[in-house]
């Protein structure tokens, strides 16, 4: 059994049958994120320099906090990321999440999430490694079928 050292640059990519605008809305509007992102509610104006907050359901707890670093609707969004959902990772340095949205032929959009600058945040790196696949799978399913994944 090999163990994985959590990567300091993580890349996740998925092809979605949707327009770039639809993908942008799905990653920036809380009514969408609540349906595929662990039920979390997003709060941000998505202007450069604005705060980025991801709340637990019912706003019981702040899960993720950051700042919008780049915002170019509907092509590219970058924000810093501090995992507050776990005490150990909450004290680590902020990392960076970049969403790249690229239209392809045939009404398909390629969405790539790059989570990097994780060099001083090994606990964060380990804790997000499985989550992004789950989130992007759910996002694709939601956009293509209108239904979130059945919760396990």
């Amino acid at each position, binding site marked *: 059994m*090999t163990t*994985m*050292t959590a990567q300091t640059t993580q890349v*996740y*990519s*998925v092809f979605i049958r949707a327009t770039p605008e639809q993908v942008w809305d799905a990653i920036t509007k809380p009514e969408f994120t609540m349906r595929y992102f662990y039920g979390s509610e997003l709060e941000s104006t998505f202007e450069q320099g604005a705060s980025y907050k991801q709340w637990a359901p019912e706003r019981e707890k702040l899960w993720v906090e950051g700042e919008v670093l780049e915002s170019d609707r509907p092509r590219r969004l970058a924000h810093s990321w501090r995992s507050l959902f776990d005490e150990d990772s909450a004290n680590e340095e902020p990392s960076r999440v970049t969403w790249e949205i690229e239209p392809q032929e045939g009404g398909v959009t390629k969405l790539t999430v*790059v989570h990097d600058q994780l060099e001083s945040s090994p606990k964060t790196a380990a804790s997000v490694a499985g989550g992004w*696949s*789950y989130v992007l*799978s759910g996002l694709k399913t939601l956009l293509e079928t209108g239904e979130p994944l059945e919760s396990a």
Partner: protein
Amino acid sequence: MKTDDDLVFRALADPTRRHLLDRLYERDRRTLTELESELEMTRFGVMKHLRLLEEAGLVVTRREGRQKLHFLNPVPIRLIHDRWIDKYTERQVSALANLKSSLEETA
């Protein structure tokens, strides 16, 4: 027409490509030269396998300076899991979960 799932299953149906994925799972962000040095295979052979993995979306390449780096992309496997594995294992798992909770209740 080949679907995304076809490409993923085809890419996984080869021991060398699974070996390449395991190497990238341990550590990715690697060049072709680095990957090639761990395999008993010609550069052309490794390139061919990497291309099939890339077509299936299991490997993503990104340029950093003059280097082309290879990353493992686990999302297609997650999609296969959600589409194929969950469906056939769910009933069994929930039966086990029910058994566990009823045993714990009576304990």
